[in-house]
């Protein structure tokens, strides 16, 4: 199953590393990632495309615990596994 996570973070050091570390450690694969500062530079807006057979709640519940995460939204993606694979960095 593929999912797209839209995440709003605080403007703090290592916040991207935290997101990616938790995602990797909990056994999810990042198929795509976009990042840009918020309009007021108060934080980052990060979009993660996630590929995994595991329930996505196992990841979102852990990400939601991160102190620097302000907001997280998760939607199922239409992306196929093959398409997701082409986006992998």
């Amino acid at each position, binding site marked *: 199953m593929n999912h797209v996570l839209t995440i709003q973070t605080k403007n703090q050091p*290592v916040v991207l*590393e935290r997101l990616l570390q938790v995602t990797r450690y909990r056994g999810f694969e990042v198929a795509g990632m976009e990042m840009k500062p918020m309009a007021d530079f108060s934080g980052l807006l990060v979009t993660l495309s996630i590929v995994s057979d595991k329930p996505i709640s196992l990841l979102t519940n852990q990400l939601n615990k991160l*102190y620097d995460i302000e907001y997280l939204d998760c939607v199922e993606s239409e992306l196929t596994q093959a398409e997701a694979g082409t986006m992998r960095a």
Partner: protein
Amino acid sequence: MKGAELVIKLLEQKGVEHIFGYPGGAIMPIYDALYQSKVKHYLCRHEQGGAFSAIGYARSSGKVGVCMATSGPGATNLITSLADALLDSVPLVAITGQVSQAVMGTDAFQEVDVLGLSLAVTKHSFMVTDVTELEHTLNEAFELAMSGRPGPVLVDIPKDVQLAEVQFKPRLVEEADTAQQQFLPAAALEQARLLIQSAKRPIAYIGGGVHMADAVPQLQDFLAKSAMPSVTTLKAMGTVPPSNSYYLGMLGMHGTQAANLAVQQCDLLICLGARFDDRVTGKLAAFAPDAKVIHIDIDPAELHKLRRAECAMIGDLRQLLPAMSVPTHCQDWLKHCVSMKQQHGWRYDHPGERIFAPLMLKQLSERMPDNAVVCCDVGQHQMWVAQHMSFSHPRNHLSSGGLGTMGFGLPAAIGAQLARPKDTVLAVSGDGSFMMNVQELGTIKRFRLPVKIVIVDNQRLGMVKQWQELFFNERYSETDLSDNPDFVSLAAAFAIPGHSISRKDEVLPALEAMFTWPGPYLLHVRIDETDNVWPLVPPGAANQDMLTEKAQ
């Protein structure tokens, strides 16, 4: 004042009385500010030992533990202890010095990316880049360490921030609103009550989250009103009084047969502040196979993580448990559980004159003061302690559960002794574990701490050897410790008296001598290397398939 002085003033303001640490170049300004401070610093002999002492302090008292280290190797030496605190949800604040920001990123002397290293082993971590953020960051660190599911928080402070000038106005300490009423999930509670009332074979599976929520009285009321059997995890031992007829002991890999069989047979498993750890469940797919599950935790990420719950609630057990207390209708089940408890009781009729560790620990348990704190290391002795000693409160049994860290016991006992100076504190260690933080004997000597040390010595890495015997065709790879030092002489080098015993008839006089000695004492207990821990659920097996044939 300087940032370094602010750190110490803030600790004083927070009522921190004891901290543990080791100085070094990048944290020297903070150590300078500490000089003649009201905060008492305990110099450990290795940063890992200092952080374990802070953990022992926190776990035995319920307060936040605080430790400090310098940059580079000082900080990396904290990593194991931070991981231990994370896995066991211990409130810990670690303050590390960092090289000045001007040289950060240049591979400066004793520079390492502590913030990066901390990601996997802390609940959260900060690096303070501006001295004006220091006060707020430290306040956040303490708040985070204690709030929700407690855990370790690291604050990395570059030397230039420590030396920068800053304004600090001591504030009135705000009273925390600990009795804050939360929204109770009415529908889920009603569902839980119905599940409990209709269950024929309910059982409470109790974890460390209960006492960490300060919900031990509510748990005991719940068990009294909704009469049902209970089992505990390693961390929760002491939550249910051993005198409770329906308490079946610890469950899991080395749990009691009654506890494991009852959980496998139950039709309702009420999981309270526990997390279905693999050492508890054995083969997960076969764990409590007929049970519906009620799961309550403060951490939303634990719900449905490993086992789907029919009824899941996030919240404060102090409020949820009273709202779930309804009568059960399971007299036959209670009788069955009591019968299993009697049928599978421990036996201590060990032949010969060699010391039988389970019996020795039972005798130790019977002779130690009621409110004594026992700090374990990791391995066979740890499981024997859990099986054969009794505890009146979980804060009296400190054991490295999640991370299983050898070397935990001795420094944790130092922290516990400082947190609870009026109580007897014991470090029960194995010969392998003891050597991992043996340098902390120096801390015991320096501060004349009356810690009682019991080393259960089989001259082996016993638990690994047991697995080699059972699962690796008796190929004893690197588990022979028969060249151990003379532990009594080693203690004597730190002015700690001791005694060595190897026969059953020596145990009681030796325990008497240890408990009557006013200061620190080391009791070296030689046991047979062939003694193993039973029962044992083999890896990958279901919990009803315990190995017990060599138990007696």
